[in-house]
């Protein structure tokens, strides 16, 4: 087990390092830079060069990479080239929106998906199942940003229940803030709920076929009790895995949904920073996301290895 842990952790570290190099190199070939953008159509070559120097854009590639990674490791994220303020503070501001948004979406999607998935499994090949499967097909097909636009149209413009493009902040009561995140979270949650409902259905069906479930039934336990005591617990493992993996995708999904609702979250900052060529901010946000996905993958792998010893020996994929 120790050997497996070490092997997987080393692999995750290699992936993380490779990802950081890929991100860094990709971004250096972006056309244009922050200095040019700040000078706009004015400023001569000397001023431009001075600004580049001042913004730390002038060093060698390797030097800049090591600076960045060193900063990440020591917790000093550096200054934004565009705003000249510490990146850590900017990220903290944005995470106050994006983390609750993604969290709310996970909760909503789980709340929608679990009952639907179980309903579909217990009603396999009957109307309930077809209904749920039809819902998942629609959920998978509707782009979250279209749903978001329709929400804005209906709730913000037609009914005027929500103000668009305003986030009240967490300073006062949390209710207004939660309220303004609800629609974006729902728009994000729907397609994830569709995937999760399918996974739940499959997992419950698989478990229902297991011997111990048949035994429990044979012993005369009611279907409801079987479902609660045996099936649900075992089916939750694959379901939890998918929820974990979805968090990474949700963070990416927030980019688009925040754009529709003009919420000043991490996704908006990412888009803004790409357009501003504020590369340090872009790198840091992307690595934050990638690090998170890699970490979750690692945790999932380790959990699986704990459950199923066969995995430890070979490659599991």
């Amino acid at each position, binding site marked *: 087990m120790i050997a497996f842990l070490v092997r997987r952790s080393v*692999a995750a570290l*290699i*992936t*993380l390092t*490779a*990802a950081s190099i*890929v*991100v860094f190199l*990709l*971004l250096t*070939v*972006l*056309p244009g830079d922050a200095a040019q953008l700040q000078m706009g159509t004015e400023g001569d070559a000397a001023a431009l060069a001075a600004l580049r120097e001042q913004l730390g854009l002038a060093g060698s590639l390797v030097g800049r990479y090591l600076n960045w990674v060193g900063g990440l490791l020591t917790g000093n994220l550096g200054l934004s080239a565009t705003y000249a303020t510490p990146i850590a503070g900017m990220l903290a501001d944005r995470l106050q929106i994006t983390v609750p948004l993604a969290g709310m979406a996970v909760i909503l999607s789980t709340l929608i998906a679990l009952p639907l998935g179980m309903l579909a499994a217990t009603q396999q090949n009957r109307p309930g199942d077809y209904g749920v499967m039809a819902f998942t*097909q*629609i959920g*998978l*097909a*509707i*782009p979250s*940003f*279209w749903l978001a*636009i*329709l929400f*804005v*149209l209906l709730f913000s*413009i*037609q009914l005027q229940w929500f103000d668009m493009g305003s986030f009240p902040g967490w300073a006062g009561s949390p209710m207004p803030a939660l309220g303004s995140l609800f629609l974006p979270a729902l728009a994000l949650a729907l*397609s994830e709920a569709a*995937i999760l409902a399918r996974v739940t259905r*499959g997992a419950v069906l698989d478990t229902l076929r297991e011997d111990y479930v048949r035994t429990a039934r044979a012993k005369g336990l009611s279907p409801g009790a079987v479902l609660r005591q045996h099936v649900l617990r075992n089916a939750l493992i694959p379901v939890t895995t998918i929820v974990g*993996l*979805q968090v*990474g*995708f949700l*963070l*990416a*999904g927030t*980019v*688009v949904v925040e*754009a*529709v609702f003009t919420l000043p979250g991490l996704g908006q900052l*990412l*888009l803004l920073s*790409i357009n501003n060529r504020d590369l340090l901010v*872009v790198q840091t946000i*992307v690595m934050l*996301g*990638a690090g998170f*996905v*890699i970490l979750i*993958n690692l945790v999932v792998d380790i959990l699986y290895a704990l459950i199923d010893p066969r995995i430890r020996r070979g*490659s599991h*994929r």
Partner: protein
Amino acid sequence: MTRPSHFRRALQQRNLMIGGALTLATLMMALVSLTWTPHSPLDLSPARRLAGPSAAYWLGTDHQGRDTLTLIMIGARNSVSVGLAAVAIGLGVGVPLGLSAATIRGWWDEAAGRIVDVVFAFPAVLSAMLVAAILGGGALTPVLAIGVFNIAVFARVSRAAAIQVSGREYVRAAIALGRTRTDVALRHVLPNIAGPVVVQATVQFAVAILAEAALSYLGLGAQAPNQSWGRMLKDAQSLLFLAPGQPLAPGLAIALAVLGLNLLGDGLRDLLDPRLRPLRGA
């Protein structure tokens, strides 16, 4: 041969039928738009902008007074070509990668696995955004941005399928007969992993359409007159107060095309290998 029964079962499959019909409709729209559209996409007129449906303009007009149906058809062409190209890149690079990893194993397998892990560390939309920003507004941008992700998907799927197939008797028999590894991989393994790969291809086609729409919605995708459904949604969004009907047509077009491909994929899976679970996520 099992073909007649395959065919009969196919007819009985609702998913396959509906999915096939929707996909065919999308493909037809794209094809027809090459030679004919109801109006010219360059026929602009502020006088008839943002109009509702009429006899001359079935789906109404956009903010420049262009015919919405024409733009939807051209958008279909754009979505289909980006989807096909992105899947082709995934198939062309990913399948050989996965197949060779499963055949050669050892260091090559490890290296391929790491590369795939790195790609999967970035959610598809995120990596596509980065690639799109780097490549700028060119026509190939969304294709490459989405294609890179597809390579990783097909590598993983074909490797897993190939390893499973390698354990079967006919493959062992071929090896026992002294065939080379390459020969076995191409002649015995490849044909037998076609099922999962085809199913995955339809799923990735759908993912590509969604991703392309998201990219062009964010302003990182297709350029006019290569209208894109995502861009139409972006245009529509800025006019929500004035013309709330505008986002309906492009959004429905995306949803129906994706729905069709997903249903087709599910139908194909049931037909070819009911136990298969394609990778999902965007």
